[in-house]
């Protein structure tokens, strides 16, 4: 489902498509190995003829919308993907679908079996995108200057729309990563006690992104990778980097649902041989299972491809059939101080890094307000307010334990605890 909706040109199409997935507005629904088709009753008298070629995927609809794919095509694909019987398996496609498929096949044949890449077109599209982003960055810089000129105290008095509008402008300029961070500030500025230093730090990092963007031709590949992450400029799957084989211990899972009911899961892996920590990111529509369900506490022996960037790096599991065995807890736990040294090391490489993995050994949970995690030397980390402190206490029972978590803005979000050589998720 997430994959389906990932084809949506924007969130409003995705939303509209969900509204059209009632089979009653459809007729002549069907699918075979390569095509899905159906007729959707829209505002026009004749129903729209909708066809999706699953091999690409490619979309065709007789509706007047200029968006590609349109909401009808998306809805059809969603219904097909839901697989609840609404879209039947039919050998022979409806004529309108079969005709279109035949036309496409003809065009493809004419263009040769391997469609030649269109380097000119690609370069042109890239240049267009970059100029849009540059314009967005110029606008963003002026906005940052305004805040500093007027003062942070005055920014705090702004209504939520102040942050939302700035975020939306960034999204329009294809800078969705920055946009999300700016929008989040609209809430943080009122929710956090330390809003002023937090805002000043973020302003600095945003400004750093503007400056780095202007010098993008000079910076190295790793920094460019980190910059792309901050900006929200994803890489193509085939464009990602070097591969490492290892026995990867699955040490932490964190799931989140966003405003569009999209479920995302971060999976933290620790390489037994390399000692490296990498993070996998998977998506699914809410209520659906993740395509890749990584099991906490298991060991995945196989190859991952790491995205360019500073550590801890995002990675993709490239092995189709990795060997999975049972692990024995948290192999790389340390005291608080070395964990913070590692964090400083990562921050030196990537100033935009927000979420820092930490594997802590011999830490005791101290209930209180706020609750703490204290190591054997007394070094205390504050637990994030949303921590399920009772569950953590129940698991630890007041004994020192090993905990894996994410260190975000000087708060620890625990994800898993080792109990009797097994990791238990929180």
């Amino acid at each position: 489902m997430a994959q389906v909706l990932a084809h949506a040109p924007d969130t409003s199409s995705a939303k509209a498509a969900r509204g059209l997935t009632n089979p009653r507005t459809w007729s002549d629904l069907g699918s075979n190995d390569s095509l899905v088709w159906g007729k959707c009753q829209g505002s026009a008298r004749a129903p729209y003829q909708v066809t999706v070629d699953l091999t690409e995927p490619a979309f065709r609809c007789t509706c007047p919308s200029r968006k590609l794919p349109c909401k009808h095509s998306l809805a059809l694909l969603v219904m097909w993907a839901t697989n609840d019987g609404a879209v039947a398996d039919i050998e022979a496609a409806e004529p309108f679908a079969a005709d279109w498929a035949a036309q496409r096949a003809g065009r493809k044949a004419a263009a040769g079996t391997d469609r030649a890449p269109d380097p000119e077109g690609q370069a042109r599209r890239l240049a267009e995108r970059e100029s849009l982003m540059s314009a967005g960055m110029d606008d963003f810089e002026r906005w940052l200057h305004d805040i500093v000129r007027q003062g942070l105290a005055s920014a705090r008095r702004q209504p939520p729309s102040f942050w939302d509008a700035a975020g939306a402008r960034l999204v329009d300029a294809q800078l969705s990563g920055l946009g999300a961070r700016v929008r989040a500030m609209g809430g943080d500025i009122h929710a956090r006690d330390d809003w002023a230093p937090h805002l000043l730090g973020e302003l600095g990092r945003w400004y750093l992104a503007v400056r780095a963007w202007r010098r993008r031709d000079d910076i190295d590949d790793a920094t460019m990778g980190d910059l792309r992450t901050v900006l929200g400029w994803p890489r193509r799957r085939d464009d990602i980097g070097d591969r490492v084989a290892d026995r990867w211990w699955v040490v932490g899972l964190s799931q989140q649902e966003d405003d569009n009911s999209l479920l995302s899961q971060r999976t933290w892996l620790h390489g037994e041989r390399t000692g490296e920590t990498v993070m996998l990111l998977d998506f699914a529509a809410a209520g659906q299972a993740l395509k890749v369900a990584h099991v906490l506490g298991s060991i995945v022996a196989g190859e991952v491809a790491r995205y360019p960037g500073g550590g801890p790096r995002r990675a993709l599991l490239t092995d189709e059939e990795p060997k999975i065995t049972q692990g024995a807890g948290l192999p790389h736990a340390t005291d608080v101080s070395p964990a913070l040294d590692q964090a400083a090391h990562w921050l030196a490489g990537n100033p935009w890094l927000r979420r820092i993995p930490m594997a802590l050994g011999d830490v005791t949970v101290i209930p209180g307000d706020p609750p703490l995690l204290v190591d054997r030397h007394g070094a205390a980390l504050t637990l994030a307010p949303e921590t399920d402190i009772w569950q953590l206490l129940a698991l630890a029972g007041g004994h020192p334990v090993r905990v894996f978590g994410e260190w975000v803005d000087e708060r620890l979000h625990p994800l898993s605890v080792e109990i009797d050589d097994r990791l238990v998720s929180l």
Partner: protein
Amino acid sequence: MSGATTWDDLLGTALVGTTRRAVDQLTIGTETIHADSAEATVLAAAALASGYRRAGWTPPTWRGTPAPPAGPDGRPECTPAATQLLELLLNRGIRVEGGPELLAVQWLNLAKNAGRRPPYRLIVDLLRFGTVNAATRALVRDVVGPRGVWLAQHNPSWSWAAAVPPQDVVERFATGTRVERLGLLTDLRATEPDFARTLIEDTWADEQAATRARFLDTLHAGLSANDEPFLERALDDRAATVRAVAATLLDRLPGSARARRMAERAKNLLTELPDEPDQEARRDGITDHREPGYGRAASWLIQILAATPLSTWDTGQIPKAEREVIIGWTKAALRQRNQEWLTALARHQPSPELVAALNPRAATDILDQQKKLDARFGGLLAAAPGPWPAKFSVEIVNRLRAHKANNVLQLAATALAEHLDPQALAAVEAWLLTVAPDEKATRRVLRGIAHALTIRATIKQEFT
């Protein structure tokens, strides 16, 4: 500004804005920053300084003493399948007839008897379950074991599960609120009933009447002959409410002096109605309270019989007894928990109240003797305690099906789900196959029962 800029300087400037505070150049660490504009200078300085700040952050040192950890729990953990089931039941992830709570209680009972513990990760859910379902608290506390009792100390809403150290009990009882003190007494009665009573007696004279009545009421748990002298004294309490509670408790002690006095009064009463109660009888708790549908004298009779030891009589007298005598004996049998009399009275004229007080085998025997499968039977079946024997379970399902007793099925659905032996599952499923598709209510109930039996069978299997 000159010299190194501190983070606080920078923050101060940023807060008021560069329109109010002029900025030329800033020094962060060893870097001097002087950009095209004051704004750019502040932003660049913020980028650098916050980087230093984040990377150089050091944790505070905690100097407290951690609370002592939870004690060891020697019980082996239950099986993964049992864990999964409990998780589903506690999170209400399953639909079963009667609700998942009933099955959760069965799970807890089996775990307790098998000496297995739940995994620690379900202790929070169990404590929340006990908080909502107060009747299960004693059971939950046993099952969560030392880890749960330890955890409950940290959260006031779980105080019902927290262990109070013995040396603290007296102090807590002396200083606590009424609710806390009642909680302490209820807990203590389960383990040290005599100590709990002494606590009540210690402050007895200074408590308000309502408090005295509530405290006395806690003696229901762990009631024994040791409590009699105190109860006998309470019959002379200046508050009527306290005297009534004392009389109710003494009703349950057929060996007491008051029971002997009642037996004396009850002599000859099978043939004639009693006179106006004298002062002694009033002291023993006989009131002018009217039994609905009976006159003054008959109501006195019922009260006297209800407080008289059943050993005074012979069950052979039941068939010839008057209605008010039967009522008095029924009350006595329920209060004295006398199985012989309960069974004899239920044979004579079964009622849900009597059936509910019988042990499962006696209760199912009574049900077996009933000829008509009507609504009254449904009430008896719903009241019968479990677990029901396998033979009875299979037969009752087949009887209900043969007589198309769908109304009984509806009335007793919860009891069937809770008490039928899992061996009756095949009979339930066979019935379900013959029910017409349009009889939705019947189908739903049968499916719910089948589901509950499957789960119960699994639970049982996981604890053997």
